C-alpha cells in the first residue's frame, strides 16, 4: 500500500445547489399530501375525509412552488421552455417536464370536482392522480439514481427511498395542517383526535419503512467500491454526519418514532405536532445530504 499525495488537481464547483434539494422536498410533500387526499375521495376511506380538500390544495400550492427552484438552479433560466421543444427520452429530466405539467393540471381538475361535490368525477381524477403523484416524485429519485458518476445516488433503492420519504414528510405535514386547521379555524376550536391518531399510526409505520431503506442503503455503500465507502464515511463520520446522523436519523426519525409510539406521548396533540415538525426537518436534511453529499465525494 503506497502513500499518495495529490499536489495539483482541478476541481470545478459542485454543479447542483441546495435549490435542487428544496425542489425534491417540495415535490415530495406535494405527492404525499395528494395521496392522503385520495384516501377518502379516491378509495372511500371515510375517516380520512377531512384531509381531502386541504390535501389537494396543499398538493397544488407546493407543486407550483417546486419547479421555481429548478429554474432558479439553471444557468439559462429563460431557456426553460427548451425542455418541451427538444426532448430526450432517455433523460429523466425530460420525463419530469411532462409529469410536472400533467400532475398539477390533473390536481386542479380533481380539486374542481371535489369542491363542486361531484363524487364520481372526483374519484375518477383522484385515481388518475395517484400514478401521476407517484411518478412526479419517483422520477426525481431517478434523476439521482441515473447520475451514475455519484456513488451515493447510483442505487436502485433511490426512487423507492424518495417515495417513502415523500410519504413520511407528507403525512407529517398533513398532521400539522389538520392540527392548525382544527385548533384555530374549525367552529369547535378542537382537534379531532381520532383522525390524528390514525395519521400517527400511519406516520410511525412509514418512518420504520424509511429507516429500513436508509439502513439498507448505508450497509451496501459500506461494502461497495472506494467512492461508495468514501460517501458512507462522509455521512457517518465526516462533514455531513451532523445532518445525516443528527438531523435525519436521530431528530428526524428515532425521536419522532418514540414520541409517536410511546403510550404517554402518542395521545398528546402537542407531542404529536412536535414529532411531525421534527420529521419534516429530518426529511429536508435527508434531501440535503443526498443532493449535496452525493456531489462532495471527489471524482477525479
Amino acid at each position, binding site marked *: 500500500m503506497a502513500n499518495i499525495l*495529490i499536489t495539483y488537481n482541478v476541481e470545478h464547483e459542485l454543479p447542483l445547489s441546495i435549490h435542487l434539494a428544496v425542489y425534491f422536498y417540495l415535490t415530495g410533500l406535494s405527492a404525499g399530501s395528494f395521496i392522503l387526499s385520495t384516501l377518502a375521495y379516491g378509495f372511500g376511506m371515510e375517516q380520512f375525509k377531512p384531509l381531502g380538500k386541504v390535501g389537494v390544495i396543499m398538493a397544488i400550492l407546493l407543486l407550483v412552488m417546486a419547479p421555481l427552484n429548478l429554474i432558479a*438552479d439553471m444557468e439559462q433560466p429563460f431557456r426553460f421552455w427548451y425542455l418541451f421543444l427538444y*426532448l430526450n427520452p432517455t433523460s429523466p429530466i425530460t420525463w419530469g417536464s411532462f409529469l410536472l405539467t400533467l400532475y398539477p393540471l390533473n390536481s386542479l381538475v380533481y380539486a374542481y370536482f371535489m369542491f363542486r361535490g361531484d363524487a364520481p368525477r372526483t374519484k375518477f381524477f383522484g385515481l388518475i392522480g395517484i400514478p401521476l403523484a407517484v411518478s412526479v416524485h419517483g422520477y426525481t429519485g431517478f434523476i439521482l439514481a*441515473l447520475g451514475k458518476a455519484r456513488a451515493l445516488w447510483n442505487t436502485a433503492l433511490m426512487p423507492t427511498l424518495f417515495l417513502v420519504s415523500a410519504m413520511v414528510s407528507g403525512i407529517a405535514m398533513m398532521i400539522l395542517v389538520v392540527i392548525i386547521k382544527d385548533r384555530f379555524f374549525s367552529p369547535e376550536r378542537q382537534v379531532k383526535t381520532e383522525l390524528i391518531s390514525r395519521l400517527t399510526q400511519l406516520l410511525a409505520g412509514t418512518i420504520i419503512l424509511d429507516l429500513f431503506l436508509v439502513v439498507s442503503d448505508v450497509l451496501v455503500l459500506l461494502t461497495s467500491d472506494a*467512492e461508495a465507502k468514501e460517501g458512507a464515511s462522509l455521512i457517518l463520520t465526516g462533514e455531513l454526519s451532523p445532518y445525516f446522523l443528527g438531523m435525519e436519523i436521530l431528530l428526524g426519525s428515532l425521536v419522532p418514532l418514540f414520541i409517536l409510539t410511546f403510550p404517554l406521548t402518542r395521545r398528546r396533540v402537542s407531542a404529536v405536532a412536535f414529532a411531525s415538525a421534527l420529521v419534516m426537518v429530518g426529511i429536508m436534511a435527508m434531501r440535503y445530504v443526498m443532493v449535496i453529499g452525493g456531489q462532495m465525494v471527489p*471524482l477525479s
Partner: protein
Amino acid sequence: MSKVRYGMIVDLRRCIGCHACSVACKAELGVPLGVFRTWVKQIEKGSYPQVSKSFLPALCNQCANPICLQNCPTRATYQLDNGIVVVDPHRCIGCKYCIASCPYAVRHVNPLKKIVQKCEFCLHRVEVGLEPACVNTCPTRALTFGDMEDPDSEISRLLATYPVQVLKPERATQPQVYYIGADMYVMEARGMGNAEVRNG
C-alpha cells in the same frame, strides 16, 4: 467515405508535467479564468526517501457510451459520427445534470457564457485537418491524436503495440482517451491535498 473514430493516447512515460497542454487549450479556446477543459494532475507516491512523482493529463474521454448524452434533457450534448461528444451552446439550458453525471468531472459551467462546456478534441481544428491544440503543443509528444479506424495511423499503431488503460473502466462509459504507462495509484487517486492511503 470510410468510418472515422477519433481518440487520443496519453503516454504517461513521456509527460513532464509542463502544463503546456492546459495553456494551449486556454489560448486556443478562450477558456475563462477558474475553469479548465484539460489539466495535468500531479501525484506523489511513497514516503521519503522512496518517492516518485507522476503526472496525469485529464480531459473529456469522448466516451463511446457517454452518460452525459443519455442524461441531457434537451439533447444539447450529442455525438458526431467521428465519436466526438459536443455541446450545442445555443441549446444548453445549464441544468448541469451532465456535470453531475460525468464520472470524470471534466465538464464545467463557463462563467461568462453560462452554459456547460468541455473538451471537444478541438473540433474546429480537426475539421480542417489540424491536430487538437494540446497535441500540437506538447513538447515531449506525450499526446497522440488520430483516427482509430485507420490501421496505419500513429494512434492505431500505439494502441496495438502497448498495454493501455482507461480511467474508471468499471463505469462502462467506454472512454476513448487511453493511457500508456498508467499506475493504478495514479489512475485511482481522487481529490486534492493531504496524504492519504488509498486502495487496499
